[in-house]
Structure formats: C-alpha cells, structure tokens
C-alpha cells in the first residue's frame, strides 16, 4: 500500500493514459478523438516531469537562486524532454485539426462512423 501512496503521481498518469485510450477507442466524434490524443500527450508529459522530481528540489537555474539551491536541484533533462515533446504535441494537434477541417468541409460531419468512405 505504501508504494501506491508514494507513487501517486505515477498512478495519476496511468489513469490519464487509460482515459485517453478510452476516448480514442470509443468516441465517434473526430474532435473528441483528437482530445483523446491530447490527453495521452499530457499524461506522458506529466510522467516525464514527475520522473525528474527530487524531494524538496529547486528549479535548475542559477540566476538569483536561493542559497540552498545548488546542492538540491531537480533533474534538468526531463524538463528539456518535456519542452520538446510539448512542441511536438502542438504540431501534431495543428495538423490533425487541419485534416478535421477538411473532412468537415467535404463530408459535412465529424462522426467517424459516417465519414468512412475508405473501406475494405
């Protein structure tokens, strides 16, 4: 039980991932599916940031840092990775939305079960 409490942030990430997969798998509206991908994105980003946390750590920036900061800084790499993956997420979302606009213009609907012209 103790490991559940200590790892609560990781469990939140697991729940978010499950919600994201549910949204992608069971929703029919294209916009909702895109939101599902975004939830996955957010969950993974949160996971990476959580990995870098050190108990009682300070931000890894030396500019006017408080005096105890040098010995106890949180890990910088996960933050850098998260920055990268956030920008990538924005890019993916923008392109997905552009396709959604196109699909809405041609078919007049965003329901994936009605959109499917490609079959078989």
């Amino acid at each position, binding site marked *: 039980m103790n490991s559940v409490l200590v*790892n609560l942030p990781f*469990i939140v990430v*697991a729940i978010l991932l499950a919600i994201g997969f549910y949204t992608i798998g069971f929703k029919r509206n294209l916009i909702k599916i895109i939101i599902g991908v975004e939830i996955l994105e957010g969950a993974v980003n949160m996971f990476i940031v959580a990995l870098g946390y050190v108990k009682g750590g300070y931000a890894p920036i030396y500019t006017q840092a408080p005096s105890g900061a040098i010995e106890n800084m949180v890990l*910088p790499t996960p933050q850098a990775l998260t920055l*990268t993956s956030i920008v990538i997420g*924005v890019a993916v979302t923008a392109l997905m939305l552009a396709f959604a606009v196109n699909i809405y213009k041609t078919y007049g609907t965003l329901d994936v079960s009605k959109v499917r012209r490609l079959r078989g």
Partner: protein
Amino acid sequence: MRKLLGIIALTVFSIILFLTAVHLRSFGSPPHAEMDKYFIEHAQKEASANNVVTSVVFDYRGFDTLGEATVLFTAVSGVLMALRHYGGRKK
C-alpha cells in the same frame, strides 16, 4: 462483440499501466542521476549559461531541439498545404 473486445483490451492495458506505476522506483528519489548531475555541475562552465534547462535544450541535447524545430516546420507546412484550397492570402 467488437466493443466487448475493446473493453477487455482496455481493462488489461489499464491493469498493466497500474502495475507499471506501482513497480517504478519511488517518486522523488531518482536512483541514477549521473547524467543530470553532470549537467547541473558543468552547464555554467561549458555552456556559460545560468539556466541549466536551456543549456540542456540547446547545447547538450541541441540536436533534439533541431528535430523539434523541424517538427514544427513540418506541421506548419502540412497545415498550410492541407488548407491551401480555402482562400488564404493568395487570391
């Protein structure tokens, strides 16, 4: 039928995720931080920057950032290409 299969798959997957979360090392105490320690100690000397995160983003892992900028470039090209038939500035 299909829906049932989907629900089963989702449940199994969620359990796996939960297992992962429990089995991970405990939150707030990373066991191996050699690489990050190096960044914190050497960033000011090697990259001459106070912000360790920026020096990781642009110096130590600068190649990732080039890739990231490329992703954004790709997406913007893709969006402009996908929507090129609707107005825009050219007509």
